[in-house]
């Protein structure tokens, strides 16, 4: 072995350890997948198209950091320069080393420490694409690219605001060791290569050669010793980084790759803690992007944001209340550059907390609730709508005008849809409610289920497995308007629309309410809307928040909504309405109410009293 020196050992051993450790961990995760996912995984990686699309995303997310770019260009550049720069250094270094050694079988450390082994003027100015010194230039350029990221990372520690982050995460011991080594790697490489180039008077590129000459000139002792110790330093920082990596936040780098593959092979989060959850937890880079978007900050809660919760799960210690202290608004999930399903992780932990508790809904019988009659459409107002009777009244008026034969399922008091229990982790207990509601819905023989509450809407779609169509009332009314079943006359000025979490981020319904509203109102822009909308502050997702804390969150949301001085706040959720109403300086109305008020006048007055004149008017219209 000619190309060997003792100093390569720390790097070499570290690398072997890292590869073995990651291999073992991945194997353990894949092995622990449920049988069905294992089949998907094995079939998926053999499927060239799936494999390539996953690979493409790995490239875009793990190397380019596309989502980080979207968040903040400076942050994106910093992550990209590290990831892509290092990756290219490895790839190009490998190609370069092949040119010099003329063989494909180099020891793994050979390309990394190439400049230590090779400093012959002739080979180093090897021509590629008839550019002399092509690789000299390229490798220096890439090193500079990575170093620029390092400088940004140092600045970020001081001025995180420039990177769009108000708050960042703190470090644990292994993180600090890893980080110190990571930050040392590239300056060490720069010094080692420069000293070597300076000592031999050749071999460096546009950056390393002049720097090397300078260093040699000012170093008071023998510069070959200096160079040699720098090579040791470089190898040691690499070695220690590799060995500490699996125990630090940097484990997210290899794990994110596996997570992207899992997602592409359609392996979904489970209701219980599975190896998918493990992969998600380890894939969190603790970038802290989720901290600033979290509205718990407004309530003075700053120990429970997704990143802290996930860290707790990772360290196998989550204080109980941290699991319960979250609005489940989904804002963090929306911005997470790794795409971690933070809400479902939180629910998994909640399920673990309440697994021993029971519920008893044996009292729910059709004798008690009354058996529903039959109709085409079954309307389920939802518990929350019972607190905002104007919405129910509007819905009934609209359906009567449209001449729809509907059954109001929860006319005489509502049986909860089950989602509030599920939010508390009580899925098993919620099943009693779900089964009962399903039975009632079945008895109506309806073909369409309409609900006024986004919370119900979500659970109907996700958990009920109903054989009929399910619509939120905003979609339903829009369809009535489009098919000409109801005429709209009124027009409202300056209306701001507030997206409810469970309708927007939770169910992806963004356009229907807007389209409907734009038919009867001039919408004013809302600074944070659609998937970036704020929670009203009244979310049922959080348990450990006082009324004052809820109010504080609502106040911030209202400030944002009132930015462009709307005269009416429109929403599509009884809970949002109820919450905003308490503190809003202007009227808060549900879309259904606005539509109802826009109907031709006679119906509007008649329907508030009795329903018969309305019906006859509707018949006339048809």
């Amino acid at each position, binding site marked *: 072995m000619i190309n060997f020196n003792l100093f390569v050992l720390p790097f070499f051993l570290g690398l072997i350890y890292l590869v073995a450790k990651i291999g073992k961990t991945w194997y353990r995760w894949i092995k622990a997948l449920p049988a069905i996912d294992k089949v998907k995984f094995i079939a998926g990686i053999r499927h060239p198209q799936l494999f390539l699309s996953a690979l493409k995303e790995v490239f875009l997310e793990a190397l380019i950091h596309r989502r980080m770019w979207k968040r903040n260009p400076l942050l994106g550049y910093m992550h990209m320069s590290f990831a892509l720069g290092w990756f290219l250094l490895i790839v190009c270094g490998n190609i370069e080393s092949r040119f010099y050694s003329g063989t494909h079988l180099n020891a793994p450390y050979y390309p990394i420490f190439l400049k230590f082994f090779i400093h012959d003027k002739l080979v180093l100015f090897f021509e590629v694409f008839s550019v002399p010194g092509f690789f000299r230039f390229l490798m220096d350029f890439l090193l500079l690219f990575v170093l620029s990221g390092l400088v940004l990372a140092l600045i970020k520690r001081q001025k995180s605001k420039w990177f769009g982050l108000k708050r960042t995460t703190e470090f644990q011991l292994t993180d600090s060791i890893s980080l110190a080594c990571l930050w040392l790697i590239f300056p060490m490489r720069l010094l080692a290569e420069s000293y070597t180039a300076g000592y031999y008077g050749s071999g460096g590129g546009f950056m390393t050669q002049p720097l090397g000459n300078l260093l040699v000139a000012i170093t008071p002792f023998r510069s070959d010793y200096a160079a040699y110790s720098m090579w040791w330093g470089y190898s040691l920082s690499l070695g220690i980084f590799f060995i500490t990596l699996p125990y630090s936040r940097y484990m997210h780098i290899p794990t994110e790759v596996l997570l992207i593959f899992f997602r592409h092979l359609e392996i979904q989060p489970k209701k219980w803690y599975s190896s998918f959850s493990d992969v998600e937890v380890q894939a969190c880079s603790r970038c802290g992007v989720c901290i600033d978007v979290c509205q718990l900050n407004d309530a003075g809660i700053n120990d429970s944001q997704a990143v802290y919760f996930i860290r707790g799960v990772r360290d196998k210690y989550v204080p109980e209340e941290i699991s319960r202290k979250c609005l489940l608004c989904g804002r963090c999930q929306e911005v997470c550059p790794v795409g971690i399903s933070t809400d479902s992780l939180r629910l998994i932990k909640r399920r673990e907390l309440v697994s021993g508790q029971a519920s008893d809904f044996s009292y*729910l019988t059709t004798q008690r609730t009354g058996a529903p009659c039959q109709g085409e459409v079954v309307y389920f107002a939802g518990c929350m709508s019972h607190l905002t009777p104007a919405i129910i009244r509007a819905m009934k008026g609209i359906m009567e005008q449209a001449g729809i034969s509907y059954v109001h399922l929860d006319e005489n008091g509502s049986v909860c849809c089950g989602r509030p229990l599920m939010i508390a982790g009580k899925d098993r207990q919620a099943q009693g409610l779900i089964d009962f509601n399903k039975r009632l819905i079945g008895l109506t023989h309806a073909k369409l289920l309409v609900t006024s509450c986004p919370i119900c809407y979500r659970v109907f779609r996700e958990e009920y497995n109903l054989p009929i169509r399910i619509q939120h009332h905003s979609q339903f009314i829009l369809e009535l308007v489009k098919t000409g079943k109801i005429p709209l006359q009124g027009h409202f000025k300056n209306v701001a629309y507030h997206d409810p979490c469970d309708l927007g981020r939770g169910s992806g319904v963004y356009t229907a309410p807007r389209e409907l509203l734009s038919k009867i109102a001039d919408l004013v822009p809302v600074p944070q809307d659609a998937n970036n909308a704020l929670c009203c502050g009244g979310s049922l997702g959080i348990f450990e928040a006082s009324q004052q804390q809820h109010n504080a969150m609502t106040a911030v949301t209202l400030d944002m909504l009132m930015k462009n001085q709307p005269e009416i706040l429109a929403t599509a959720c009884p809970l949002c309405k109820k919450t905003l109403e308490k503190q809003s300086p202007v009227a808060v109305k549900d879309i259904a109410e606005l539509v109802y008020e826009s109907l031709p006048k006679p119906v509007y007055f008649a329907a508030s009293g009795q329903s018969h004149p309305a019906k006859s008017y509707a018949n006339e219209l048809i």
Partner: protein
Amino acid sequence: MVKNFGYKILSDASIDFDRNDKRIADYLKAHEPSMNLCIGCGSCTATCSAGHFVDFNIRRIHTFIRRGETNQVKRDILKCMFCGKCQLVCPRGVNLRNVILTINRAIEQTG
């Protein structure tokens, strides 16, 4: 044949604070202090979804817990649907869903 005379014999309603089990009350006080804000107005019970269908009275549950009469509480609390209406109407801002969750936990822990 049992004849319905229109009255029944009530169980002994005297409260013996020395013998009653205040563990749930203590746990609740420690973990959801907003319970102390309750003025017993009964709004929560009036709006209750479960109470609409069955004999279930969330205000009575607080009262029983405060008195340390926990036997009926343990049976009754299972009927709550957790819908959260009570919390939204409470004029005192009692965090009722967490009260119920905390009672569940207290029962689990005290057996």
